[in-house]
């Protein structure tokens, strides 16, 4: 039994069986990560290119670690716009990479749909590591894995995504994935950072954090980008923190514990107070470890089903 697709472009429309298979496969890879020798020969002889057209440290390292632990050969291509400004198109770059006989491509790009575009111009399996504000499927998968580990099941689990939903690929992939797995998803943030008609995706919308806290089991707190303030989408970080910040005071008023997730990097004391980020209900570092296991699972499944 393999995945229904030879690429992982997003979780929008991904069948439940695919998500379940990835989550289950990740369990055994996580076990490997706990061994003294953390490397397996699964993808020996396969070559993976990491195409990062947008700067990223964590996701790139996580992918690279996953690739190396599976014994794949890894090449990194970081462009962050430079080759584009030199006039080389994405298509040229992709074809060049392909000419080097690459088996899999991991791509991050600032425009939605670039991973989909790649599938039309190269033969390699394509893994979306974030396309614009569209999708970041492995992040949502590791978030779901972390929640499943904590709660046993995602069915009926109440999860709220807090922050800048408009510009978040993490939010979108989580909404698609969690809804497919039967979770109850809500979003909370300033009206200027909630995209229009999002309620049609089956999520509840909140603009007051204190209203949503009593109704959830877990929060996925998103990083607030400083540049959104310059763009006039919210007045100040101070105001954001006062009205949307997840703080110990707020959580202590709730009569049940709320699990705290964050895709990183955290703006401490802006969207999340330091004591909550480091507190007993935070699973933020579990997410980091689970990220490697999830990426190993996806790479293994895509790399061996061709």
């Amino acid at each position, binding site marked *: 039994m393999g995945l229904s697709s030879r690429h992982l472009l997003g979780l929008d429309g991904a069948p439940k069986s695919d998500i379940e298979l990835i989550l289950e496969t990740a369990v055994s890879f996580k076990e490997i990560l706990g061994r003294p020798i953390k490397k397996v020969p699964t993808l020996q002889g396969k070559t993976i290119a990491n195409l990062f057209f947008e700067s990223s440290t964590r996701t790139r390292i996580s992918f690279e670690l996953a690739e190396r632990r599976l014994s794949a050969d890894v090449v990194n291509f970081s462009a962050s716009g430079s080759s584009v400004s030199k006039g080389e198109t994405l298509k040229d770059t992709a074809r060049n990479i392909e000419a080097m006989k690459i088996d899999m491509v991991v791509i991050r790009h600032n*425009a939605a*749909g670039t991973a989909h575009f790649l599938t039309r111009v190269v033969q390699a399996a394509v893994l979306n590591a974030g396309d614009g504000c569209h999708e970041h499927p492995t992040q949502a998968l590791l978030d779901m894995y972390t929640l499943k580990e904590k709660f046993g099941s995602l069915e009926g689990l109440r999860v709220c995504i807090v922050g800048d939903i408009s510009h978040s690929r993490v939010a979108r992939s989580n909404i698609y994935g969690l809804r497919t797995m039967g979770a109850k998803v809500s979003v909370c943030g300033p009206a200027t950072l909630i995209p229009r008609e999002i309620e049609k995706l089956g999520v509840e919308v909140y603009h007051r954090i204190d209203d949503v806290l009593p109704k959830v089991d877990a929060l996925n707190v998103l990083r607030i980008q400083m540049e959104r303030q310059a763009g006039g989408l919210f007045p100040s970080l101070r105001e954001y923190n006062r009205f949307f910040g997840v703080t110990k005071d707020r959580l202590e008023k709730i009569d049940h514990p709320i699990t705290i997730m964050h895709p990183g990097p955290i703006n401490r004391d802006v969207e999340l107070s330091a004591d909550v980020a480091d507190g007993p209900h935070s699973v933020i570092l579990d997410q980091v470890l689970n990220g490697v296991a999830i990426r190993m699972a996806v790479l293994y499944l895509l790399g061996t089903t061709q």
Partner: protein
Amino acid sequence: MPKKYLLQGGRFIDPSTHTDSILDILIVDGVIQSMKPSIAPPSDCEVIDLRGKLVAPGFIDMHVHLREPGFEHKETIETGTLSAAHGGFTAVCCMPNTNPAIDDESIVHFVHSKGKNVNNGIVDVFPIGAVTKGRKGKELSSIAELVQAGAVGLSDDGAPVYDAEIMRRALEYASMYDVPIIQHCEEPALVQGGVMNEGLVATELGMPGIPPVAEEIMIGRDVQLTEYTRSRYHVAHISTAGSVGLVRDAKKKGVRITCEVTPHHFTLTDDAVRSFDTNTKMNPPLRTQTDIDAIKLGLRDGTIDVIATDHAPHSLDEKEVDYLQAPFGIVGLETAIGLAITELVVTKILSLAQLIEKFSTNPRKIIGRTIETREGELANLTFMDLDAVWTVKTSRFKSKSKNSPFEERTLKGKAIGIFNHGIALVY
């Protein structure tokens, strides 16, 4: 020896004279000599068999980007007019967003004479002059000189005339010569960075949106300015239900406003963007089914006067990039009639007479270049086959560019030829 053509047995429809009958048309040296139910072919006469086909006063596309001068890698006046001819158009109005912009009479002369010298001049090229110098929106261009040189309308298309004071003065100044100001309606502050319609699909795809109100706000403002200055105003490529309502209300009040819609805006919704095909990226963007329904109603009740393509050629290299970077626009000349017949006539939204009004009578009236199809007048005609079922193949386009979202789409009805300036082109 005079060149004679006999157009035989076609169904001729001319809404301006309420004609709808099977006629033979005898043309001698480009001039209609006779229109009768049956004409015996004179000697040395080329007979064009149009039995079962439709004949109409020559179609005009009043919104075309010919790209010359300045962007000849996308299109030239020669390839653009050839594309028009093969799409069934005997005339085009070309937009001034060239380089240099058509903001000076010398450029009007250049475009005009180039148009006459390519493809035997079978397609009339009517330049639209820029409203402001360099299309920068700051100072009025030499409007009187542009009109005198042959500009049939004024527009900064590609960009709106965003400054209300400049717009007011442009309307006033142009009204002296009774030429329309053709506005690309978009409030720039509301659009920044947007690449598709703002709404559910943009939300799902995480793409920056262009809200419908950006268009509607500009139309609302301009309607008030047009009413205040008692001038004439034309909305280019209308795309939202709200805009159609604004134009309808303004017309009821007696404001001298007209508008056009593109075939893609009554055919496709923003759902098409899910393919991430950059040929679904245009400005204004593809909207929703609600907007299409309102547009069809507007076409039917006369709120929308004109169908125009906004033919916007871009090279493959320019379009084959990521969605954010890709330029706006698609080619339209060679699919317009097929799409209009398929989407509007077959579905009985428009009668054939209404279709011909929107492609010929109305746009020609708006730009002041009307034609009459009767004995003694120049023959300027479009031929169509309403029953032809065909599949769009962009590789067969005469346009230099192939950026169309309609590749492999099956259409019913197509242009099969044109006649203008004594030349017949039947394909």
